[in-house]
């Protein structure tokens, strides 16, 4: 699979990362060689193999949906790059 500039544009849009056109040339080159490397996997027939998504045999533990660490609003807001009283501030989304 060869990755070209158009593909980089498409993926970077999906990933929400702006990439300038100079960077996108070198990225296309890097990703092409990485995908060539990755595609060694096609040598293997895996038709009858179950995919492995977790190495633990047990299902993930879940907990009761209970509030147990409330009243930490100010702590959560502490690291916000832009806030207004108790709100996170983002650029205007509705005209």
């Amino acid at each position, binding site marked *: 699979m060869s990755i070209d500039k158009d593909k980089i544009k498409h993926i970077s849009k*999906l990933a929400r990362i702006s990439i300038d056109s100079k960077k996108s040339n070198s990225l296309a080159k890097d990703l092409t060689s990485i995908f060539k490397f990755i595609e060694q996997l096609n040598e293997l027939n895996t038709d009858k193999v179950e995919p492995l998504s977790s190495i633990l045999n047990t299902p993930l533990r879940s907990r009761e949906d209970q509030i147990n660490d409330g009243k930490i609003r100010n702590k959560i807001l502490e690291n916000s790059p832009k806030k207004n009283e108790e709100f996170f501030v983002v650029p205007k989304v509705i005209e």
Partner: protein
Amino acid sequence: MSEIVKKNLSEIIDLIKKKEIKSEELANLYIDKVNKSKKLNSYITTCFEHTIQKSKEFDKKPNLNTLLPGVPLAVKDLFCTNGFKTTAGSKMLENFIPQYESTVTENLWKEGAILLGKLNCDEYAMGSSNETSYFGNVINPIAKDTVPGGSSGGSASALAADLTPATIGTDTGGSIRQPASFTGTVGLKPTYGLCSRWGIVAFASSLDQAGPMTKSVKDCSIMLEAMAGFDKKDSTSIEKKKENYSKNLKTDIKGLKIGIPKEYRVENMPKEIDELWNKGKSILKDLGADIIDISLPHTKYALPTYYIVAPAEASSNLARYDGVKYGYRSSKGNDLIEMYENTRSEGFGDEVKRRILIGTYVLSSGYYDAYYLKAQKVRQLIKKDFDENFGKVDAILTPSTPSSAFKIGEKTNDPISMYLNDIFTVPVNLAGLPAISVPAGLDKKGFPLGLQLIGKTLDEQNILNVAYAFEKNCNFKNEIKNWWL
């Protein structure tokens, strides 16, 4: 310069327990050397006021019934530390001050340890040479202009340079074992689920594990004992009783079966590494172990599998960095989407972007089956290779890395050659197994090389024992000359 900082963790603990040194004196010895060692760039943040205050509190009322009484420790800057900057080596988190503590570090403080500072690492733990950190390259104390390995490069460098008596790192594809091998130190990646991931900046959640990095195998057992344990805040944490790794450490390995996988003899591997591997085999054989040739046929597919699974999980984990709730935020952009795009473009470095893009692509519509599902199937085959062989052998011996430490800049232009560093370490992460890298010898440049012991699930005690026996009979000596002072 004091000789005390050169000592192993276990010796330092003895000094404190015998009241031959106070915690505050010890802290000052390390602080002094850290201050004189800025050239290595192994620390991102120090918190010496906190260290001194805590050590004074300890000395006033010393509790000696803990594993790490009054011992100052620096940790990889991927562990959230309440009130102390946690950057993950990224511009994105340059000013991030966690409001909570990671479980693993909390466990260390409960055992009496005291935070010295936060250690440099590759950005979001993505790298094998510590050259992707926003805070600059870390130098290997072995030699000028040489990388310490990565991603836990600051941890390995600080440990080998005596800037912390022991430390912790994280290992997603080799990030503890490879830098340990490059610096002549011991590094262990535990079984997936043994150490809690809660409060560790996430890279690839099905592979990430925290583990100890130390100057000796005994130290490693002490640190593992302190940090491991069930945590209900990590949904993949294994529910089991705590083990006394340090107390149960023994050198008797008679009758143990050690597997030697033929697939780890890769093309172009330096002769020295092959010789070292043979040396390892004969040491273990002389100690009464049976050496058995085995085959792990899917080994060569581990790295390609890893470079689908890890970026896929990373692209999902790193979606949270949007410039809204915490972290860096770009001032450019006319609307919300542009703000996101500029924040992520300016906040992430090149390697992180590369991996997010790979991950986004392999998970994108139309490509999921061809890449991600395929990788999950091959991951199953890699795990099966190990499962089948662990019926026949008790542990597996391999080299830790395909080379010794390389020069800064030597591999930065070719991502694949950088990725190949992890060829011997990655299969273990994919299979969730424990593995330890132990220093085994020096190459002709005088650079250290390590051997890796891979164990069965939750068989940390066994690989620690084999490593302990090996260490006692290997006579490895690290030759670090303090040239930077």
